[in-house]
């Protein structure tokens, strides 16, 4: 027996976790890693290609954009926005979704009905449309992007977790806990929550990938953080305008978003396979 827990022995988990940790470190140490200030403009050298292509300069390893800003530095600083949104927004959405799911699944009855119908109303909005409308109402800025994602995506947690809670609540040991005289609060936190936690962790990991995408979408249409904060979506919007001047500027932010989301998804998939004890052998395969 290895000393490592089962979930750390899964190749998927290790791969996903490495990607996520690496990008988090880049975001954390951005001021030390970035060769330039992300907003510093060098108007004499706009649309530089990366250093390995013809005409590239070593001072700008991944080239420059339409205003002569360093692409690498902007990518590194963009990771800060992406990771902040990914972590804060998905935990926010998880907390609201999980609390409501446990209340709905445990108590059932009219409160379950009410929460269920609220989710129905929410789900009738396409997520992108709802987050755009929320951003119009709330105004741009990092705090509001996070708020908008939390307000849109709590339903993902609520819907999936509720049915899980429903199953767990019917188990004998939950009834036994009630018979011993556990309060509702204690039954939920001590008996039900441990059983739903694996699913919760998996969902958070997947949600982080979704949050990265939603932030990129919002900053692509200019409804995320302000123009002075570098974000990957913004870089894409800028590069899309000047696609013939420098296709490279489009390639790098796309790659960053893809790698980040892939990291979260592979991590989530690995966790699902290793943590969910009820998966049958056929599903695990």
């Amino acid at each position, binding site marked *: 027996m290895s000393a490592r827990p089962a979930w750390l022995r899964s190749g998927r988990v290790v791969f996903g976790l490495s990607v996520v940790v690496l990008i988090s470190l880049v975001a954390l140490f951005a001021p030390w890693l970035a060769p330039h200030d992300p907003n510093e403009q060098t108007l004499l050298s706009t649309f530089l290609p990366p250093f390995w292509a013809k005409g590239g300069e070593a001072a700008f390893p991944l080239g420059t954009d339409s205003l002569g800003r360093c692409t690498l530095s902007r990518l590194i600083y963009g990771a800060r926005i992406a990771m902040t949104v990914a972590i804060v927004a998905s935990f926010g959405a998880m907390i609201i979704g999980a609390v409501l799911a446990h209340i709905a699944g445990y108590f059932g009855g009219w409160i379950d009905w009410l929460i269920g119908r609220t989710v129905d*109303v929410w789900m009738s909005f396409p997520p*992108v449309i709802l987050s*755009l409308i929320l*951003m119009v109402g*709330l105004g741009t800025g990092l705090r509001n992007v996070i708020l908008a994602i939390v307000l849109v995506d709590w339903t993902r947690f609520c819907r999936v977790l509720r049915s899980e809670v429903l199953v767990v609540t019917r188990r004998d040991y939950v009834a036994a806990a009630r018979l011993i005289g556990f309060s509702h609060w204690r039954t939920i936190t001590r008996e039900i929550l441990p059983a739903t936690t694996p699913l919760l962790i998996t969902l958070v990991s997947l949600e982080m990938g979704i949050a990265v995408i939603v932030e990129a979408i919002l900053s692509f*249409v200019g409804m995320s953080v302000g123009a002075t904060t570098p974000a990957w979506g913004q870089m*894409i919007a800028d590069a899309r305008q000047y696609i013939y001047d420098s296709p490279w500027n*489009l390639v790098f932010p796309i790659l960053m978003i893809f790698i980040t*989301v*892939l990291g979260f998804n592979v991590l989530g998939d690995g966790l699902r396979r290793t943590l969910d004890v009820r998966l049958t052998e056929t599903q695990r395969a």
Partner: protein
Amino acid sequence: MTSILPLIARRVLVSVVILFIVSALLFCILRLLPVDPAAMSLPPNATLAEIEAKRHEMGLDQPLFRQYLIWATQVLHGDFGTSIHFRRGVAGLIGSTLPATIELALLAMIVAGTLGIAGGLYLFHVRGSAMEPIADAGSIVLLSLPEFLWGLFFILLFGVALELLPFTGRLTAGFQRPVVTGFLLLDTLLAGRPDMFLNALKHMILPSLALGIAFAPTIMRVLRSSLLDVYQEDYIHQARLRGFSERHILLRHALKNAILPTLSLMGVQFGFLFGGTLLIEVIYSYPGLGNLMVDAVRNADLPIIQAVGLTYCVVVLTINTVVDAAYVILNPKLRIA
């Protein structure tokens, strides 16, 4: 058969109720906005008294609930107000952009369905073989690519690098588009212009491929897992004992039963896909509902945002209702209920 109708009627009723709640919600969110729609619809040199008069005219000095009632009544009469930015009727703007978005969504759904079912059959086919981990990893990679990254990737590859296909707008400049139904593909055919039809279709290949391919992996995975479930059933074993070929068992027995949850998921996906058209339209400068919405958002054009938001919800709710109804009709097990 008689028991199906009440079920469907109930579902329609629920949708109508949801729509009312959604519209009220939409109205409240947009009233949080720090800008004053009255001041925005007047020239910048308007006096405070003029703004006040305009506020009164637009009903903005009334309580929120009254404002909502006024708006809802107008909407029910087909009056969505006037755009602050474009200075045109909102209903007309939606009428001229919605068909384009529907065309895009339908084409993308065909792409998603075809790729999804083919991919699902393939994933199922390679189960237990050496290809499985590779195919499985491939499907996770595909899941990680949202439609807008596909869209940009296709522009780079087929538009800029290979110069194979156009990636802006709907028609090459110089074509005079006929307007009969508003659906460009249909209109070009009705006008007897196959050259224009092909040109329009060419412009739609990249956007619909990008959108469809992003939604295919989910369909693949559901079809694969429902096929796996079906293969646990006794009748598959029995079919094998009767000597049917594996191909016959898969296509004639298993697929028939596994396709139902897949179709139901495709319905839900169609709702998401319809929302996904927004980004694809912006990326491909495709003149549909999504571009109208983003323009309106940038200009804080409230009447359009409200109306377009509502339009998206109506379409999604309609799709969900139709899918539910189809599910009841297709699934014999639900007919007794």
